[in-house]
């Protein structure tokens, strides 16, 4: 199965890169883009064929390595 892990900064954490991207978009005339938050996206190819197991494994590696719980949270999709 494939798991997709989306890691993003927690809402309370300032994102200097997101802010810079938003500023760049504004200077390009995209005033309709109110804010940008930058994150990370991982695709994990997993040996298991069971969704529950895939989700559990993806969460485990996200907790252990992919995300830093001090500043980040994550969301997982499996298929």
């Amino acid at each position, binding site marked *: 199965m494939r798991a997709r892990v989306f890691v993003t*900064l927690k809402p309370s*954490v*300032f994102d*200097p890169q997101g802010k*810079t991207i938003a500023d760049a978009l504004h200077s390009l005339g995209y005033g309709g883009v109110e804010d940008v938050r930058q994150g990370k996206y991982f695709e994990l190819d997993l040996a298991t064929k069971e969704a529950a197991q895939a989700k559990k494994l993806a969460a485990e590696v996200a907790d252990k*390595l992919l995300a*830093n719980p*001090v*500043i980040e949270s994550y969301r997982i999709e499996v298929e």
Partner: protein
Amino acid sequence: MKFGIVVFPGSNCDHDAYHAAKHVLGQDAEFIWHKDTDLKGADALILPGGFSYGDYLRTGAIARFSPVMKEVQAFAAKGGPVLGVCNGFQILLEAGLIPGAMLRNRSVKFVCAHVDIRVEQTDTPFTGAARKGQVLRIPIAHGEGNYFAAPDVLAKLEANRQVVFRYTTPQGEVADDANPNGSINNIAGLCNEKRNVVGLMPHPERACESALGSADGLVILESVVQSVKSGVLVANA
């Protein structure tokens, strides 16, 4: 005494730290490869600056799982003095030896400059020879030194006097203009609760000889020499 300098793939201040320890301070020093599980009898450890594992994923995120880190954790748990400089500090944060995390500098730029930092605490093995309030001029070189901790964690760090260094003006005043990276509360360096593990973003090992523009970093390394030689670890004081 003997310094152990931990070398990760991508460390690039390991030789600077070795030079300061061995040639400037005249102490024993030995490199410890990150796959080693023997600390070679070191009395104090330095996790040097650099770009371990190319800063992939997050700064220090992969290095913290290097085999040597188990030994570093055990050494720290026994009260052994550990200094993390720049990337070494980031590794200590990822390893949970010091609370909090680093964000990209608020300017989103890599900042290479001499900055002023004020010694906030002198009851750590790395600041015992300094004066409280002493301002040190030491270089920084980092893109991710914007320290962050959640409000409850930050309150605890301040209450426990774990903020060891703060970015200030040359006169020692905390000011936003003197903050090179956006660190919360102008934090430049911290210690753990037991006070034997210290991390800072500035590079004291690059400021140990006046020929390099400043010798203000020397007091940090001299402190640990004194601490080890006195045989009284501050953590047990």
